[in-house]
């Protein structure tokens, strides 16, 4: 690709760093049908994405699980302007599909983000390989540039601050392959966000954030620090899996989940995955009303404790135990036995507290309660049986 061509192209578009993405009128026109009154088009709620200056509706579209161009077109029609894809989605077909759709729209009328995983290794070779994959993405998208290019799925400050990858993303920006660069993360989010800010290189962080995260408070604080430093924040995984159970019989109130994240004004936009038209309509409606109703708050509160097997060791249960037992240890043993199928590890853990396990099962007056809704007594009684298994059976 010709860097000069890209730079020249960027300098002649209407989309400058300080300008509006679209005239507000265009978005309003697209969403006009939502207004209660024909003479007052509805205006979506928009926020500026940090120092990028991009003003985006608060709900965008994560395209990862959709291979449906019709859905993308419908999203554009509904006023969504920002679309998130990645180099690795659907073997490249996801980017190709978007390229086909966007070919029919003026380049300045949408914002596209893609993501490329960090390259193994260091040095010029790794940098060139990464940029090669960026070029492949651009080719699939049939675009000269993407608006946001992320280092994909970064999980630590070390990865975020890799000298080779920092050079690579900077080169991507300077050569005009991307207007802005960022990192995406669903692991160690506060540390990655802080590292991204520290780098002084990344313009945007795409982070997992939702109402079920036990470390939501830490993520929120990191988001605030990033916002103060001018780094734009895009939220993902806002639906926390969309269902509470594997059989998909207990849906999460997705609209409430989305609104919850967007109560934080420092989250500029979100990219919920959309795979159906009803889902699109529901998500897009949040662009016009962020108010969390009492019913929605109740739905989130009810869903929050539902989890499964995994104790977060918050320790809040111990206060309710008359013997002051190390309940998180027992819960961890339960997880080892049933989650990880590691009976030896469960037994080893329990052996360290075996006399105290007995105190529990003999007690009969448990008032310990788990904020995640685990049945403390039942689980301790269950995992206690591991102590009876001869050790050499588990060796």
């Amino acid at each position, binding site marked *: 690709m010709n860097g000069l061509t890209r730079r020249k192209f960027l300098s002649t578009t209407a989309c400058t760093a300080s300008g509006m993405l679209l005239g507000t009128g265009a978005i309003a026109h697209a969403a006009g049908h939502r207004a209660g009154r024909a003479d007052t088009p509805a205006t979506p709620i928009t926020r500026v994405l940090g120092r990028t200056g991009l003003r985006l509706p608060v709900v965008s579209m994560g395209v990862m699980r959709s291979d449906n161009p*019709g859905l993308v077109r419908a999203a554009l029609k509904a006023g969504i302007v920002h679309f998130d894809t990645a180099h690795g989605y659907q073997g490249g077909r996801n980017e190709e599909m978007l390229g086909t759709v966007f070919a029919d729209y003026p380049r300045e009328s949408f914002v596209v983000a893609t993501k490329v995983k960090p390259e193994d290794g260091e040095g010029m070779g790794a940098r060139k390989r990464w940029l090669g994959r960026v070029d492949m993405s651009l080719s699939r998208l049939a675009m000269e540039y993407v608006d946001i290019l992320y280092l994909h799925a970064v999980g630590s400050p070390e990865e975020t601050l890799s000298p080779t990858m920092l050079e690579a993303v900077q080169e991507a920006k300077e050569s005009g392959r991307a207007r802005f660069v960022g990192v995406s993360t669903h692991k160690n989010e506060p540390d990655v966000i802080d590292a991204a800010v520290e780098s002084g290189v990344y313009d945007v962080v795409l982070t997992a954030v939702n109402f079920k995260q036990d470390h939501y408070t830490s993520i929120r604080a990191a988001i605030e620090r990033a916002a103060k430093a001018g780094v734009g924040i895009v939220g993902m995984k806002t639906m926390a899996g969309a269902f509470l159970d594997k059989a998909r019989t207990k849906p999460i109130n997705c609209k409430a989940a989305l609104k919850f994240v967007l109560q934080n004004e420092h989250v500029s936009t979100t990219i919920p995955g959309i795979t*159906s038209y009803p889902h699109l309509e529901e998500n897009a409606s949040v662009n016009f009303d962020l108010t969390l109703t009492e019913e929605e708050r109740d739905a989130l509160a009810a869903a929050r404790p539902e989890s499964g097997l995994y104790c977060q060791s918050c320790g809040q249960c111990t206060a309710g135990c008359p013997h002051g037992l190390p309940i998180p240890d027992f819960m961890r043993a339960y997880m080892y036995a049933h989650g990880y*199928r590691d009976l030896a590890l469960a037994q080893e853990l329990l052996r360290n507290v075996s006399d105290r396990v007995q105190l529990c099962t003999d007690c009969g007056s448990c008032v310990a309660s788990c904020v995640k809704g685990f049945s403390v007594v039942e689980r301790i009684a269950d995992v206690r049986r591991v102590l009876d298994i001869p050790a050499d059976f*588990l060796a």
Partner: protein
Amino acid sequence: MRPIVGIAAARPPRSAVLLHLLLLTASASPLAVTGESEDFFPPIPGWKVQAESTVYLPATLWEFINGAADLYLSYGFADLHVAYYTDSRGNEVRAEAYRHESPADAFGIYAQERPPESQAAPFGCEGYRESSMLNFVAGPLYIKLSSNQEGPEIDNALAAVARAVEGTHALPKEYPEGLGWLPKHGRVARSEQYAAHDHLGYTFFRKVFSARYGDAGECHVFVFQEPRAEDVGRVLDAYEAVAGPGGRGENEAVHEFRDPNNGPVTLVVRATKVLGIVDCRNEEIRKTIMEEFLRTP
């Protein structure tokens, strides 16, 4: 096929029996019983194999594949075994065995990740290879083999692991049943996909197999089956609610819709199976596809 049972971690068989007993007498667990990773990944000449003690489950899959977990979960992911093969020169092959709820689900996630231009690999019902990578799907298993080195030696090792896994477990080589409902004539090779939910963006198009047809893959064709004829009627009614009344062609089995989101869509009904053709302007292909579908018993 050797059954996959027992404890997940690398433990002696006795513990497998004990875990079975523990789980059987425990309060209901949503977890499936999985196999021993060491047994799952057999040794190959010149290489040592070391299985990870952790078996990844739906709640922990993200720890291994991060944000990609969502997609796997949407395809009925059940568990993942991981092992590492190493040779005396320090070369390494990582082997991942994803077990899904059904062969269709496993095929679905495999096809999601399969690059359009990839070299076929003769394992399972279908496989492909790229530099330092070999993936294939067999029954409910999606096997992914990769290395951070490359070269003929690595390629040979990947193939050897694939053969060993396939042979040890006598993995099936048949495609999921639903793929057989798609007409053969004009189908673009290796374009088949499976969508468990929301095909074309509609909740009523579920468990759908699809493929591209025509010289340029210009026609998108899909097929699904409902349990009963009256369920097919409900799907047609639901689609009419979105796309308006379907026009009937010469053949009563054919319903033509003007889908506001997807363009012209033709649905062809044969008992409990429904074939869909999306915005296909090649009349010859349309006709051939419909005839073949209606002709097949």
